[in-house]
């Protein structure tokens, strides 16, 4: 709001700090408040500030031994009043009006109290200036949104790192383990089938061998029986020949033939007997072999396939492990029933919802980050431009330029483009730069705010330079208020006006 600069402004304070009752008038132009030490100059500034900014807490305003206080401003034909009240618990409450040009940023941009850290600001490094411009350009609203989004993202990310989500993330691994078990199960089943078929083939081989041996045995036994019969016939033949020999004359031709016949029969008998002996041995061998084969068959049939029990036991174990793994998978896909936040819910559903939120928050962060960067860059450029303008207009010797770089680091350039570290500046130079930076901030962000207040910064200051700056400010701001230490005998602040 544009202030009315024609009017005098009356400030009345009651029970504010050490000031019991004070009425003071500010006129357009330079208002110098003169008073000795501890007579209420800073209190006056604080009291006035609370009519356009709520930066100073009410408890810092109300006199310590009072229950009630008042600040009143006559401005543009209207009275603006703020009352302060101490509650029984000791808390100080303020309520009432604010001036029409009140702005929460005004205290930082237009009131150079020693306590606002005006010098500290220039030596405080980039983070101090970033924060300063953030607050004045409302960039802090963007950074608040960005920080809030980031905090939410962090919170969701922490959630996603919780045990149920971790278990869920293990599902692909569990599925791989389950598949490995399936492969082992199938391999073991194949081994069992192979073992059974191998055993069956072995039994079949033995059975075929038994059949073959049985057939051979029958054949060899028949031959043995035939040999036995032949021997018996041969013996009968010899007996018959012996009988015939008895009936013949021993010297006759017939007897000689019979004797030859008997001899031949005996030779045949001997040959057959030898053959029977060999054949008997063969039959016995076959019988033994057959017995061995039958015993072996019986034993192998009773034993079953070699290692089958081990394989079947292994298969059973694998099947049990598969069931356990399936149960593990089943557990991993849900939150436990006693989970505080998502009892029994599917992790995949909650996870996708959280990821969707994170994605959305990322977009929000990105959007506001871009806005923030643009706003801050713009604020810095305008601020630097106003700083440069002030230095040029003031024509202060020794300084070529003072500016903030993109990292919000303050650079002080001496004549000849020589950069001087801020820390090495004299106290007086630091104050000069501080006041010009504040003025630039005011002109950049609160160009219509009608006040610029400087409190007791002249203690260690070059008076000539100070008043040169104040006169410069006076030309740019409707009301300039400066406090100044005096050795006057009066115990109340007095205002000297310089139009």
């Amino acid at each position: 709001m544009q202030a009315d600069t024609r009017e005098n402004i009356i400030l009345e304070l009651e029970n504010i700090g050490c000031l019991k009752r004070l009425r003071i008038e500010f006129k357009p132009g330079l208002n110098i408040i003169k008073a000795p030490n501890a007579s209420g100059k800073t209190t006056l500034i604080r009291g006035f500030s609370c009519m356009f900014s709520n930066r100073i807490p009410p408890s810092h305003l109300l006199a310590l031994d009072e229950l009630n206080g008042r600040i009143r401003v006559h401005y543009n034909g209207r009275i603006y009043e703020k009352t302060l009240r101490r509650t029984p618990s000791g808390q100080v409450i303020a309520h009432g009006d604010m001036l029409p040009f009140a702005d929460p940023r005004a205290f930082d941009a237009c009131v150079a109290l020693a306590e606002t850290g005006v010098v500290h600001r220039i030596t405080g490094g980039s983070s101090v200036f970033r924060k300063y411009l953030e607050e004045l350009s409302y960039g802090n609203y963007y950074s608040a949104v960005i920080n809030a989004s980031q905090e939410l993202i962090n919170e969701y990310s922490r959630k996603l790192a919780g045990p149920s989500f971790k278990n869920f993330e293990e599902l692909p691994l569990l599925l791989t383990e389950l598949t490995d078990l399936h492969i082992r199960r199938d391999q073991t089943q194949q081994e069992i089938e192979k073992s059974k078929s191998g055993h069956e083939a072995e039994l079949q081989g033995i059975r075929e061998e038994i059949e073959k041996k049985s057939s051979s045995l029958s054949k060899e036994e028949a031959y043995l029986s035939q040999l036995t019969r032949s021997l018996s016939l041969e013996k009968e033949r010899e007996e018959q020949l012996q009988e015939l020999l008895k009936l013949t004359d021993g010297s006759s031709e017939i007897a000689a033939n019979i004797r030859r016949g008997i001899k031949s029969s005996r030779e045949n008998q001997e040959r057959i007997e030898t053959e029977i002996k060999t054949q008997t041995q063969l039959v016995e061998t076959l019988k033994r072999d057959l017995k061995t084969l039958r015993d072996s068959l019986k034993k192998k049939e009773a034993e079953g396939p070699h290692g089958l029990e081990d394989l079947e036991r292994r298969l059973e174990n694998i099947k049990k492990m598969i069931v356990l793994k399936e149960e593990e998978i089943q557990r991993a896909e849900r939150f436990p029933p006693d989970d505080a936040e998502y009892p029994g819910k599917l992790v995949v559903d909650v996870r996708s919802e959280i990821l969707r939120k994170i994605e959305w928050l990322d977009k929000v962060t990105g959007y506001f980050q871009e806005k923030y960067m643009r706003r801050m860059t713009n604020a810095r450029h305008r601020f630097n431009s106003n700083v440069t303008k002030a230095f040029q207009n003031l024509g202060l010797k020794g300084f070529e330029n003072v500016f903030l770089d993109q990292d919000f680091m303050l650079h002080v350039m001496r004549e000849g483009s020589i950069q001087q570290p801020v820390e090495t500046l004299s106290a007086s130079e630091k104050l000069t730069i501080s006041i010009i930076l504040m003025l630039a901030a005011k002109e950049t962000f609160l160009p219509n705010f009608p006040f610029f207040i400087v409190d007791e910064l002249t203690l260690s200051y070059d008076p000539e330079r100070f008043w040169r700056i104040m006169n410069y400010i006076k030309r740019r701001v409707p009301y300039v208020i400066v406090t100044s230490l005096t050795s006057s005998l009066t115990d109340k602040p007095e205002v000297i006006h310089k139009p």
Partner: protein
Amino acid sequence: MILSNRVNETGKRVSDLSSWKQSFETVSQELEMANRKKHALEDLLAKNRMSRPTYEHLLKGLEEEISRLEAHRRSLAKNMMERANELRKQISLIEMFLTNLELRRIGQETDEETYNQQKESLIAGLEATKSELQQIENALAEISK
């Protein structure tokens, strides 16, 4: 994908396993594993051991993996076909060198020792090349099944 020959402890020439073969075997194994996982997943769904949303989430990941592996195998097959064509050309070339060597021997342009050395080298190269070609053709036949 260069088939290199080296000499083993017994002095016999052996072929190193070509890089295409290692890649092909790896990708085939991974593909088989991925398909088995898919089957295991379907089994879990059928047994009500897994909900449909979880199944679909895991299936999506698996299908992406299968697609990636199949694409890799297709690209590998293309390289293998190129390699096979290259090997066929190499075989023709070696056979031509062998014929040339025989002609030089008949024409008595080379002594017996040189002839034997060169023939041995060429035959070893020819066998190795034919062997690799056969392996590639087998692998390609496996892919096209």
